[in-house]
């Protein structure tokens, strides 16, 4: 039996890697992947705590997040392709038209 704190630690590490990826990377594709990483970090925490407390709600939430993540990835990639067609780049530091 692994300690519940180990799961939470894994969850935190995954989430942290995701955050760093979102903040530091310039490639939109990588950023989307990092977002997936953050969501999955949260999923680990849901499932672990659910299993630890014997409550199915944790697992249900994890599936919910996966569904949303799938939808999000689909919409995000579609936007990305549209963006690439327009600007011929997926570097977000180049995409800074929306500013004062």
């Amino acid at each position, binding site marked *: 039996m692994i300690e519940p704190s180990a799961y939470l630690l894994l969850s935190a590490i995954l989430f942290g890697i995701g*955050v760093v990826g*979102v*903040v530091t*990377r310039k490639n939109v594709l990588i950023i989307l992947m990092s977002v997936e990483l953050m969501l999955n970090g949260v999923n680990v925490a849901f499932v672990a705590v659910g299993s630890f407390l014997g409550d199915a709600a944790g697992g249900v939430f994890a599936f919910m997040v996966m569904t949303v993540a799938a939808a999000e990835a689909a919409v995000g990639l579609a936007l990305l392709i549209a963006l690439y067609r327009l600007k011929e780049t997926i570097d*977000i*530091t180049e*995409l800074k*038209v*929306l*500013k004062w």
Partner: protein
Amino acid sequence: MVNGILDYLWLVPALPLLGVVLNGAIALFAERPLLLKEAGLPLAGGHGAAHGSHDDAHGTSSHGSAHGHHESPAYRKLVALIAPGVVGAAFVVALLCVLSLASRPADGRTFVQILFPWIQAGSLLVPAGLQLDPLSSVMALVVTGVGFLIHVYSVGYMSHERAFARYFVYLNLFMFAMLTLVLANNYLLMFVGWEGVGLCSYLLIGFWYEKQSASDAGKKAFVANRIGDFGVLLAMFLVFWTFGSLSYTEVFAKVPLLRESGVLTTGLATAITLLLFLGATGKSAQIPLYVWLPDAMEGPTPVSALIHAATMVTAGVYMVARSSALFLLAPDTMMVVAVIGAITAIFSATIGICQTDIKRVLAYSTVSQLGYMFLACGVGAFTAGIFHLVTHAFFKALLFLGSGSVIHALSGEQDMRKMGGLRKYVPVTFFTMFAATLAIAGIPGLSGFFSKDEILWQAFSSPHGSPVLWGVAAAAAGITAFYMFRLVFLTFFGDSRMDPEVEKHAHESPWTMTVPLSILAVLSVAGGWVGIPAVLGGSNFFEHWLAPVFHPVAAAGAHGAAAAGAHGAQGAVHHPVVLEIGLMALSVAIALCGIGLAYFLYRVRTGKPDEIAARWPNLYDVVYHKYYIDEFYEWAVIRRIVNFSTGLWQMFDALFIDGIVNGAAALVRAAGERVRRLQGGVVGGYAFSLLAGAVLLVGYILYRSVVQ
């Protein structure tokens, strides 16, 4: 219908208002498009060169000459019918009302007609109401009567004027405002009329507004009057604060009561009356606010006759007489009124000596005669003041209309140095003006003699009076006789000094002008016979007629002596008849001296006036320039105000106010300049901010839970 014709009193001001509406419609919809069309065409289009130059003369002076008539559009005939018609009808209604009032017993001659509730605010209840009593009936008859004659005269005088309908709209509006002023039953409604006549005065002085001097004179009159109106407003606040009402009957009825209970102290009465008198000095052109009246001569001459001689400028006298109950409680104010009146009378009379513009001589004469009226009020002889107001309205209106007729005959010439020998050209004007000159000079038997002598006698004998006041007033009377005869001699006698071109066209005026002159001449001669004093065997009907207005009031006042003074005939009881007759003879002698001097200087030794002026050049210069009062005001008041305003504009407006407004904008702009850097457009930056915010929030919550 218990009151009979008196129930129709509201028609008296309403009829001129009807004239305003009708003539206003004509002016707006018939005359204005026509004038605009004319103005749109360069030099009056197809009228030809001769007509073109004639139109130019109209543009600058508009006095016009007999030749070169414009074809008269039909609307002008309508205006010429409506404008005098409504005023004449108002006169008839006023006359019937006054006759109906006269049939009542002497103590019941106050008729108040409440028309509608006007202002209701808390305890301030002011209905729009009219009051006909002996005082306001005298005023109403003078205003409508003289006003009607001047309207008729105007039809002739303004016949060459393009803005004919506009002129009569203003004139009718003036009649409405003036009748509101004299017939109002409370101070506030009187003030509406007071401001209304001020507005009309402004509009009519600046009637030829293309002329810079006329437009300036209008503004000067308006501003000088506003200074006085400020006093009237404050006085009204004080009256309402003290009496809780603004209606004449209520206020004056409460005077004895509040006097006894100590609410109405002498100081309070002095404050109210001094403020009212400040208003009177503005409206009636007394020192220190008289400067606007001579400049007001820029207006058309009938306007000078109606507004600036016969009616509006006497409004101050009317108001003081109307408030006699309050004035009698304030001996200090009475003294101020008398002294200001006497000084104004002699001061402006001396200026009149050296003026060369015929209308300006009359203007200073008007200021001087108004001074007499205030002198009378100041010594408690309100009846004498109102009596002089009436006779002055007759003879001064006549003098102005006569001078207008002369100006009309001479195609706009106003300089007496370019007149002379006019007697044979304008005989009717000459005879009527001569009658008025005899009247104003105080020749026995004519109207001016009775009223002026009543004032002189009261100035001497009344408890408020003194021999000094008598002396000043008598000297002013002598000067008046001198400058009036100077005017007549320079204008009508001697050799012609006219421009030959002007002399060729010199003509007597049409009947619309000579008939009013003749009627006014009769009134100037006979108008004084209603007030022949007892000492000369008269019954002094005028005194008895006004007695209900002034006497119960005077008797109720604390100053019993003042009451006796106001009685005139009763005041004479304390003085021997010989004294009264003697002073009368003396004042006549002084007037004759003035006439004799004028005859000597301007008929016998015509070179003498220039010699005298040459011998004392400085004195002549000072008097000729009206004692440099205008220049003094310019330096002492106007420039100060202009400098102060300029300072306020540059310091306060430009720096402070604009500084706040611009500063606020600059602050927001500078802040935005810095804050906009937060929105860099780089998504990573936003994500980092989001993260930092989340970390801070979570950290704070954790910190709170750990601490607790």
